[in-house]
C-alpha cells in the first residue's frame, strides 16, 4: 500500500507511523512524500525518527549497529537520506532514542541546516534565471506558447526558494523551542 503524506514535525510523523503499525501496516520505504507500507502482524508500534546523513558507508554502518545493539531495528534510511526510521525491536531498553534535551532538539537543527543549504544552493540558479530571462513586456505578453516559459520558471523558482526557506525557518524554530523547554 502506498500513501502520500508530508510532515514538518518529527513527533507527528512518529505518531502517525506508530498508529499505522497498530492498524497492521509497517513502513518499508519512503520516496519524497510517498510512504510504502507492508502488512504486518507484529503490532510493535514504537517508531522513532532521527535526522542524520553520513560521509562514509562505514560511519553509516556503525550508526545502524549502535541502534540495533540497543534494541532498535533500522526500518528505512540511506547514507544520505537524512531521515532515519527506527522501530523498537524488543521490550528491553529505552523507549526513546534521545535521552537529553540538547539531542532531542539537535535533530531539528540538522534538518534546518539541510533546508538552509538547499535554499542557498538554489540562489545561483535563481540569479541565472533572472539575468538571462528578463521579465519584460515581450515575455509577459503571453502571446506564444514559448512566452510562458519565462514567467513559469520565475514563479516556480521563487515558490521553491520560499518553501525551502520556510522549512529551514520552521525547523529552526522547533529547535529553539525544544531547547527552551
Amino acid at each position, binding site marked *: 500500500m502506498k500513501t502520500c503524506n508530508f510532515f514538518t514535525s518529527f513527533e507527528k510523523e512518529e505518531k502517525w507511523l506508530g498508529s499505522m503499525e497498530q492498524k497492521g501496516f509497517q513502513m518499508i520505504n519512503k520516496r519524497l512524500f510517498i510512504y510504502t507500507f507492508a502488512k504486518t502482524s507484529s503490532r510493535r508500534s514504537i517508531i522513532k525518527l532521527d535526522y*542524520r546523513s553520513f560521509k562514509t558507508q562505514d560511519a553509516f554502518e556503525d550508526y545502524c549497529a549502535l541502534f540495533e545493539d540497543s534494541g532498535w531495528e533500522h526500518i528505512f534510511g540511506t547514507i544520505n537520506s537524512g531521515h532515519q526510521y527506527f522501530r523498537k525491536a524488543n521490550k528491553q531498553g529505552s523507549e526513546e*532514542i*534521545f535521552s*537529553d534535551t540538547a539531542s532531542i532538539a539537535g535533530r531539528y537543527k540538522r534538518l534546518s541546516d539541510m533546508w538552509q543549504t538547499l535554499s542557498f544552493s538554489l540562489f545561483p540558479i535563481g540569479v541565472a534565471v533572472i539575468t538571462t530571462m528578463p521579465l519584460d513586456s515581450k515575455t509577459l505578453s503571453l502571446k506564444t506558447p514559448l512566452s510562458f516559459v519565462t514567467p513559469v520558471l520565475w514563479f516556480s523558482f521563487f515558490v521553491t526558494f520560499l518553501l525551502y526557506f520556510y522549512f529551514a525557518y520552521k525547523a529552526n524554530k522547533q529547535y529553539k523551542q525544544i531547547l527552551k523547554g
Partner: protein
Amino acid sequence: MEREKHLPLTETVFYILLALIEPAHGYLIMQKIEELSGGQVRMAAGTLYGAIENLVNLGFIEPTASDDRRRKVYIITEQGKRILQLDVERMNHMMSAAEEQLKKDRRNLG
C-alpha cells in the same frame, strides 16, 4: 589562571570519557556508563551517537583499530585524559569546600 573552557564536563561526557579509558564501541560505552554510574545515567542511542561525534571533533576521544568490521571502536586521547583529570580536581575542590562549610554549620548548631 584561565579556566579551561570545556569545564565543567557534563555528566554524560564525564562518563563517556571514563568509559573510554579502555577501548569500546558504542553499545559497550552505553553499558559501561550505566555500570559506572550505578544505573543513574542511561544514554539513548541517538544521544550517545551525537556525543561521540562531538568528542571526536574536540579531540578528546579517537577511533582505534579493532576486529569488529561493523562497529567503530574508540579510546580516550591524551587531551581527553587531561580534561578528565582537570574535572576530577575541580570536583575534589568542590567536595572539600563543601565538607568544610558543612562542618562549620554543624559546629554552629551544636
